[in-house]
């Protein structure tokens, strides 16, 4: 059955890239952001490219999350707390995907303490939700080009709930990436630091923000 996904922060770089990408799948998307005009523009653009897309813009995060089966918090780490407080009740028992990177503004370090991660902090704020880490090691531009230099970019998924991990892996596949279940939610610490490294290397070697991780194996 068609699942409903609420994307909070859908007018941002990552949020809109995710929305465009997931609109190709059998999902009903509820896009929300503080600025309804901006998020409506994203919805209109998706419908222009794909008239069959099941997508709608909403200005109420709580209503969207209440309707949703899966919630994607496509907001920076600094905004996660505020979002979590608003949706806590309606996110009960639901999958909440944390895409945030805990990187600081100059991309040279983390903003959380070393013994935690943005995903674990979100789980602490939403104790009755199934928080899953995903899409944090992918740049926004990767969603339009998930195959780089002939190789499909890997996307890592981490969390506690087995069924939720499978559901999110399928979502990652629909978005065009190769899903790899990396482990429980504490693996997010490594995943978030992997992205810090990728950002630093992107700046250093000018990857033009189109880069990703690929595990080579037998």
């Amino acid at each position, binding site marked *: *059955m068609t699942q409903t996904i609420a994307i909070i922060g859908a007018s941002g770089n990552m949020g809109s890239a995710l929305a465009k990408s997931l609109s190709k799948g059998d999902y009903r998307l509820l896009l929300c952001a503080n600025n309804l005009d901006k998020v409506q523009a994203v919805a209109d653009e998706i419908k222009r490219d794909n008239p069959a897309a099941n997508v709608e813009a909403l200005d109420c995060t709580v209503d969207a999350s*209440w*309707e949703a089966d899966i919630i994607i918090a496509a907001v920076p780490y600094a905004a996660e707390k505020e979002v979590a407080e608003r949706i806590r*009740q*309606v996110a009960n*028992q*639901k999958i909440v995907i944390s895409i945030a990177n805990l990187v600081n503004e100059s991309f040279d370090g983390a903003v959380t303490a070393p013994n935690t991660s943005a995903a674990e902090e979100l789980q602490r704020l939403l*104790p*009755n939700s199934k928080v899953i880490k995903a899409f944090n090691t992918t740049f926004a531009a990767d969603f339009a080009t998930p195959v780089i230099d002939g190789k499909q970019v890997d996307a890592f998924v981490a969390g506690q709930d087995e069924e939720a991990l499978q559901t999110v892996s399928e979502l990652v596949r629909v978005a065009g990436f190769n899903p790899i279940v990396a482990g429980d939610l504490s693996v997010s610490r490594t995943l978030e630091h992997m992205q810090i490294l990728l950002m630093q290397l992107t700046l250093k070697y000018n990857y033009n923000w189109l880069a990703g991780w690929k595990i080579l194996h037998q």
Partner: protein
Amino acid sequence: MYDLFFQKFNEKVQLTGEEQVQILDHLTFKKLRKKQYLLQEGDVCKAIAFVEKGALRAYSVDENSAEHIIQFGLEGWTIADLYSFLTGEPATYNIDALEDSELVLISKTAHEELLQTMPKYETYTRLNITGAYLAMQRRLTSIIGSSLDERYQDFIALYPHIAQRVPQHMIASYMGLTPETLSRIRRRISKK
């Protein structure tokens, strides 16, 4: 969002504040818009739905694509494909919203966890299942042995205000009648 759920729960089994919180942590809140599905035939029914607000129906579709309504779910009612929920087999019912609705869902995982940790939830479940069994027996007896007029009156007693909320053809479908037959019965009863 869950006031009616706990009101009905407390009518069956009285909960302490602490127990209420324990149950609350296990609930999923879901809004459905009119015509949206909660469950589709062939999928596994993964949750029991309590209708906090709105109206739903459970129905099966026969080989001629005709719909047969099994149950309506109005405020305060519980609706699910219990067979699928309990066995994990694919559902034979579809459940969709007749109005914009607010539901309180108890997932299979949450249901089993609560059954194991909370005797009061077990009592609540037993009363719910017993109630569903009695309702089914009443419905069966009514279909087999009652006159059409009696069946219609049984139906109205069960769902007092439903005629104002649900189209006639759905009521006919629930009763296993054509809409024409139902309207004849209604005319006859109103003349009495």
